[in-house]
């Protein structure tokens, strides 16, 4: 391997060096500073004679006297089933004091695209035990469903609750959920948040079936661009080579995108919206699309990326581009949070696009789709009326309107607010749904099949008459 001492320029996270032989795009690089410290980096651009290198651990301390060594290959992740239970740095090195990783295989972290022809459409219901998700925005195996949150909101609690409770109903019966694994990729989160996760993992014994990648707030920003790729390469290996059902939690995607912006700026690229690179959609898609199922393979990769929306604004490029790629989104809401609703999920803007095929008779329950539809409509109507009530007061509203107002309140307190430690099965969730719907007159349930109304509707005719009488 040839060593160069040819650095010509250092700019932000980038180092430029002259070379006399061709260097491949994305190739790995080691830079050794004069005092013997080794930094790792990656070739971003290679033009005959000059390469641009992005240095993961930051460029501070590097000068023109540093040595540059090209590794002749792209960045690889060391893979083995024994990664389960390990805690690694953001670039895949053990930081738990355990033994070095003895890989069975080393794999390129960029990851090839799954051939759409080879995919299997995800339709296996995952019960998270959270009513707002299971009932209204059902998650399925192989889905990518992000949490859209804001700073200071309990998105981590929600993610942990899902990681703890996630199960597939038939497995519960069979008693075999050993093939479930969690991959946790942290990007730029605070040590405190990291502890929150680690404590929960240790307390619940989840660590044994987890692989943790930690890039903390004070770790190099550039490293964040490789952390999710390391995590996803591991996930694909466990899912498609070792038959695990893998749940990948990536947090916080906002920090990842900031790192992309930083690199873009250092390369003096023409920036896109709000300074983020024009290729951010493609870049994010290359992460999020690494979820799914493949025909003929047992395992699956399910992704729950978490992002904090700057200024709670979902038109900001990070949530916006994410929403355009993922299969829905779960909104964590500031108002609900301040009302003490736990988890504070706002179901109205939330969506699971893979829900329709994952629910119904034989999968969840025959009434699931209709109940969810009707609750959406009713809650939306109640929500609308709240604005009006502020102006004209409850008395000015019709009886029908008042019922919808009550419905909205009950929906939040009875259905959504279940606490972070309650695990509801889908039957329980739907039954609560019927309790709520039964407060509305039967004729209002126009989205529910008549037979289902007959079977489940518990509305009391006498109550209804009483209401119309006064």
């Amino acid at each position, binding site marked *: 391997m040839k060593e160069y001492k040819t650095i010509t320029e250092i700019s932000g996270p980038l180092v430029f060096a002259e070379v006399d032989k061709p260097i*491949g795009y994305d190739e790995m690089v080691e830079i050794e500073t004069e005092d013997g410290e080794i930094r790792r980096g990656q070739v971003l*651009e290679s033009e005959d004679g000059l390469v641009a290198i992005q240095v993961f651990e930051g460029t501070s301390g590097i000068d023109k006297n540093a040595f540059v060594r090209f590794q002749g290959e792209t960045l690889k992740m060391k893979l083995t089933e024994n990664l389960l239970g390990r805690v690694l740095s953001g670039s895949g090195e053990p930081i738990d004091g355990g033994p070095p990783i003895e890989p069975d295989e080393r794999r390129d972290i960029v990851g090839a695209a799954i051939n759409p022809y080879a995919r*299997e459409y995800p339709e296996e219901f995952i019960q998270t035990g959270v009513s707002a998700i299971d009932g209204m925005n059902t998650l399925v195996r192989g889905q990518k469903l992000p949490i859209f949150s804001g700073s200071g909101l309990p998105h981590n609690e929600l993610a942990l609750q899902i990681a703890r409770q996630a199960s597939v109903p038939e497995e519960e019966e069979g008693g075999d959920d050993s093939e479930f694994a969690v991959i946790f990729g942290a990007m730029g989160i605070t040590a405190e948040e990291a502890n929150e996760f680690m404590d929960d993992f240790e307390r619940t014994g989840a660590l044994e079936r987890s692989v943790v990648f930690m890039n903390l707030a004070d770790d190099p920003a550039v490293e964040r661009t490789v952390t999710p790729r390391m995590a996803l390469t591991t996930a694909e290996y466990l899912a498609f080579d070792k038959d695990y059902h893998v749940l990948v939690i990536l947090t916080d995607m906002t920090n990842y995108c900031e790192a992309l912006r930083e690199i873009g700026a250092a390369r003096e690229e023409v920036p896109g919206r709000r300074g983020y690179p024009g290729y951010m959609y*493609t870049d994010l898609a290359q992460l999020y*699309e690494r979820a799914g199922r493949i025909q003929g393979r047992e395992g699956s990769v399910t992704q729950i990326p978490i992002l904090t929306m700057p200024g709670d604004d979902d*038109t900001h490029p990070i949530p916006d581009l994410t929403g355009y790629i993922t299969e829905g989104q779960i909104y964590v809401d500031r108002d609900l949070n301040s009302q003490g609703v736990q988890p504070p999920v706002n179901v109205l803007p939330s969506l699971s696009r893979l829900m329709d095929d994952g629910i119904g008779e034989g999968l969840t329950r025959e009434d699931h789709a209709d109940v969810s539809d009707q609750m959406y409509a009713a809650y939306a109507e109640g929500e609308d009326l709240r604005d009006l009530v502020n102006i004209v007061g409850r008395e000015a509203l019709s009886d029908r309107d008042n019922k919808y107002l009550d419905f909205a309140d009950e929906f939040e307190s009875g259905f959504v607010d279940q606490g972070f430690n309650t695990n509801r099965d889908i039957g329980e969730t739907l039954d609560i749904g019927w309790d709520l719907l039964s407060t509305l007159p039967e004729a209002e349930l126009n989205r529910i099949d008549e037979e289902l109304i007959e079977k489940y509707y518990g509305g009391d005719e006498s109550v209804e008459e009483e209401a119309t009488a006064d």
Partner: protein
Amino acid sequence: MSQADTTVREDGIIDSVSGPVVTAVDLDARMNDVVYVGDEGLMGEVIEIEGDITTIQVYEETSGVGPGEPVENTGDPLTVDLGPGVLDTIYDGVQRPLDVLQEKMNSAFLDRGVDAPGIDLEKEWEFTPEVEEGDTVEAGDVVGTVPETVTIEHKVLVPPNSEGGEVVAIEAGEFTVEETVVELDSGEEIRMRQEWPVREARPAGDKKTPTEPLLTGQRVQDGLFPIAKGGTAAIPGPFGSGKTVTQQQLAKWSDADIVVYIGCGERGNEMTEVIEDFPELPDPQTGNPLMARTTLIANTSNMPVAARESCVYTGITIAEYYRDMGYDVALMADSTSRWAEAMREISSRLEEMPGEEGYPAYLAARLSQFYERAGYFDNINGTEGSISVVGAVSPPGGDFSEPVTQNTLRIVKCFWALDADLAERRHFPSINWNESYSLYREQLDPWFEENVADDWAEVRQWAVDTLDEEGELQEIVQLVGKDALPEDQQLTLEVARYLREAWLQQNAFHDVDTYCEPDKTYLILTTIKTFNDEAFDALEAGVPVEEITDIDALPRINRIGVQEDYEAYMDELKDDIAAQLRELY
């Protein structure tokens, strides 16, 4: 993509690599030539020539590719293979069949450097001649037919750039697409397979004013904002508002002969869904599997960006080919914004001067060139064929003022604006009835009046007026509450609510409701209008509005959509509504 007999010209050497953009020196090439890049032979296309430097966009990932590696020129532009076998196939953006790639790569993941012809070169097809020896044929003429799928008879055409001539030999029977089936006196040999460069429109005669609707089976579209066969439409909307579901509904239920569905930079699972569903679902016209009339092009968001740029051209060229056979083709592109972004990404790597929001200055020109390839045409062989193009647009932040939406709106004649608010309250399809429009409405009215009901336009106008009035009343309601309105206005609100819930809303996931024929669309409207007319009579006779809106029959209006035997249901319902209301006075 074709692997045609290629005259290899001078090879070059890679000079630099930056993502999908590679420059080469010493390459003797023309603009848009297809080249093979690097030791692995990755497919690319020449997009700029400056002095000795040739710039190439590469249709595959370039990690690990470095300067010094060779570049080989095929000397041919990017073409598609056309012939039997295009239907019932799923391609990537450069027309490589994804099933063949999976087999050749022996992997569920897309590897690099593997090419495959767009149509199976070994398969034999039953060719039935349509001409005889001694006949004179010209470019575009049909020389024979092949049963391509259970639904579609493939017409074998004299290639558009042929000089034509007299038929001197003709075959009948089983042949591969590369075998000669017809020979002309000029020595030209006609095969079932032909090639066409994707960036060039196939020749056609004049465009005609479309007068026939492309029926969509969707009430809000057929009823309020119809598109013509040969028309263009845009579906802009923020994420999750229903662009893909709408496009898939059109692919499933529209009365086109052929459907070309392009997944351009969108999700893998969405394409998988189509691949799994379409072979199972029946074509509403023939009852055959939908796939038998469909070609899919899937260049998902994580597949190479340059192939995303080319996938819309691959799709529209295939559409033109079937148009030339005299078919009505519907093309959906989901999403044209991703295509525009691919242009932007490549343009910025070329360091071109950016236009608005970083998009290249030629964005508007490319969009209009693309939509211009739609239309209702007189074909060069004397038949008529059409291409209807429906493009999804994904505006950043859902803001329609951005360049792709705006430039698209200048071209297309149908605007189906999706609305996040409607989607949020699960009003689907979330097509906003105030913002959307169709410039085809008037020119299609005669068709609907003749084929559905002679008061089609009139009844629709009533619906439009009622919805408009509701919009105005809602603003007042927001301030004072509904009960403060006079009774007739309260009644209008109630009627409008049924228009929204029973007519405009349509559940794509309900077995019956998912498709609504024009007759049903019309009848639902007349049922609601019956209620309207009877209710106003009752009101005039002094019946309080609460009593009118409380009759038993009304909730049944919202269940019409899911009725299979809708005529009987609605007849009874209309009678019941009238009877119950008249009982009140």
